[in-house]
């Protein structure tokens, strides 16, 4: 397939949920955006604004019988919305992969984690199980998990939240996808693991050509990674543009509210903020 200037082109995407007898609910409306190769596109908005619905529609994972999807999603020039499930399975994981907020969602509690990474490769490549395991091992070491042999044969409950999130990333990267959808990848982590995981994503961004759709409502995370940003409200795009432009001169007050903490101006708070403002990054 020839290299496409735009990896993903979304035009007038609309998603409507219909329950039997209920009133149709529009979750996503009139959404258009592009993602170029190697680009990190941030997606922000309050909970319930349609971020996750948007992400799931790119993967063809919306519950089919109760949703109405309209518009167009072109991935490497191929229309995804009309794709049959069998064809979509080839793209899901290999072309577009997703990692969730809770690593628990993508890892089974009763299987060894190394096998779960190898399984993804096995599903997409014509390789022997042995070769898949070897490949899984090299990916797991690439996401910065030391002592790979021990990690490889561990069960999810034996690992920390930070380790599990790295494995979820390894699983998503296993088949070298062109586009990674990361849905709140650090929200379940505490501060120290969060900083480590961000470093890992920054490194991934610097050393590979992967494109990322980064769903997160934390401005610090978007600031560390996003090249461009989309701000959504009630299923619609409020504003989109380069991150730094939206941060420094937002044209919509909602964008500003999403990116700037107000604080309540109490003395202790503001003194602390000033101090942190002077501190650098460790």
């Amino acid at each position, binding site marked *: 397939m020839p290299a496409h200037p735009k990896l993903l082109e979304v035009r007038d995407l609309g998603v409507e949920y219909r329950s039997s007898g209920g009133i149709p609910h529009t979750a996503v409306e009139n959404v258009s955006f592009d993602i170029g190769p190697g680009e990190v596109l941030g997606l922000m908005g309050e909970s319930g604004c349609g971020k996750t619905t948007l992400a799931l529609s790119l993967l063809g994972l919306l519950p089919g019988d109760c949703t109405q999807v309209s518009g167009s999603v072109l991935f490497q020039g191929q229309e995804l919305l009309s794709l049959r499930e069998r064809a979509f399975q080839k793209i899901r994981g290999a072309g577009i992969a997703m990692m969730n907020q809770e690593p628990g969602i993508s890892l089974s509690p009763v299987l060894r984690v190394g096998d779960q990474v190898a399984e993804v490769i096995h599903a997409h490549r014509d390789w022997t199980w042995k070769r898949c395991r070897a490949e899984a091992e090299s990916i797991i070491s690439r996401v910065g998990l030391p002592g790979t042999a021990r990690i490889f044969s561990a069960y999810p409950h034996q690992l920390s939240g930070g380790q599990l999130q790295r494995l979820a990333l390894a699983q998503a990267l296993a088949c070298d996808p062109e586009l990674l959808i990361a849905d709140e990848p650090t929200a379940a982590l505490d*501060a120290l693991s969060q900083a480590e995981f961000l470093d890992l994503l920054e490194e991934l961004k610097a050393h590979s050509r992967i494109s990322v759709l980064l769903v997160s409502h934390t401005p610090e995370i978007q*600031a*560390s990674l996003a090249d461009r940003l989309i701000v959504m409200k009630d299923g619609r795009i409020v504003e989109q543009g380069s991150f730094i432009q939206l*941060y420094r001169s937002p044209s919509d007050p909602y964008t500003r509210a999403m990116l700037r*903490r107000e604080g309540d101006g109490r003395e202790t708070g503001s*003194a602390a903020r000033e*101090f942190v403002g002077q501190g650098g990054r460790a």
Partner: protein
Amino acid sequence: MNMDQQNPFVRVQYLSKSYVQRHPLTNAKFIVHAFDGVNLTINRGTTLALVGESGAGKSSLARCLALLERPAKGELWFDGLNLAAFGNNQLSVMRRQVQLIFQDSASSLNPRMTAAEIIAEPLVIQKEGTKAEQRQRALALMEEAGLPREWETKLPHEFSGGQRQRLAIARALTLRPKLLILDESLSNLDIASQDQILKLLSSLQKEHSLTYLHISHDLRFVSQFADEIAVMHEGKIIDKEPAAELFTQPKDAYTEELLAAMPTLETICAERFD
């Protein structure tokens, strides 16, 4: 800020809690120490933030302070009363004074009850007032929490994340508690909703002289509102200071590490884009 050092609202002394667990394969008993020898005071009408990484024992401590679990050792004083000496009946009376607000409002609210029913439920359980009075109280609380009265018949899933958390706050206030424990209650929200709810909490605190224990893993976030910050690490409180002092002169290396892990937005942008 009223620093009533002599009579703090909450005083915790040498509090410890451990859980007995069984190994999944050998069935052998072993003990997990959730926290150990914790000393803590929270002054009336102030906010103490409890910060630490996951597994540090923050939530176990919160459950003991909410009187949902009995500590193994140590003393727990509320408003000058030593709760260790209390029997179960007396404790259930005390429990009304403490309310917990959880992180995930979607799973902590009954999905089949309307907003007004959720807020009034504590009154129903306590058999307080007539049906009409209970509803009136629920409506008043909705208004106080910044939710329009007209939404009384809405179900939790019809609210946005921020609105659901307002609903949880309104419900927590029903029995007029004195201490609110917020366990990562705002972590799932975007910062615009966080700001709004922090304002709400701050005005409620002034009006009802509420005491807050706010648990979070995010030092940067709690610096916006906390009067004091306690840092918890591996079941112990390793640092507790007024918020400004903790940031200017952290006493513990771990606190410093936490601070360094969280650069501000300005710093990140300056490093990346300038």
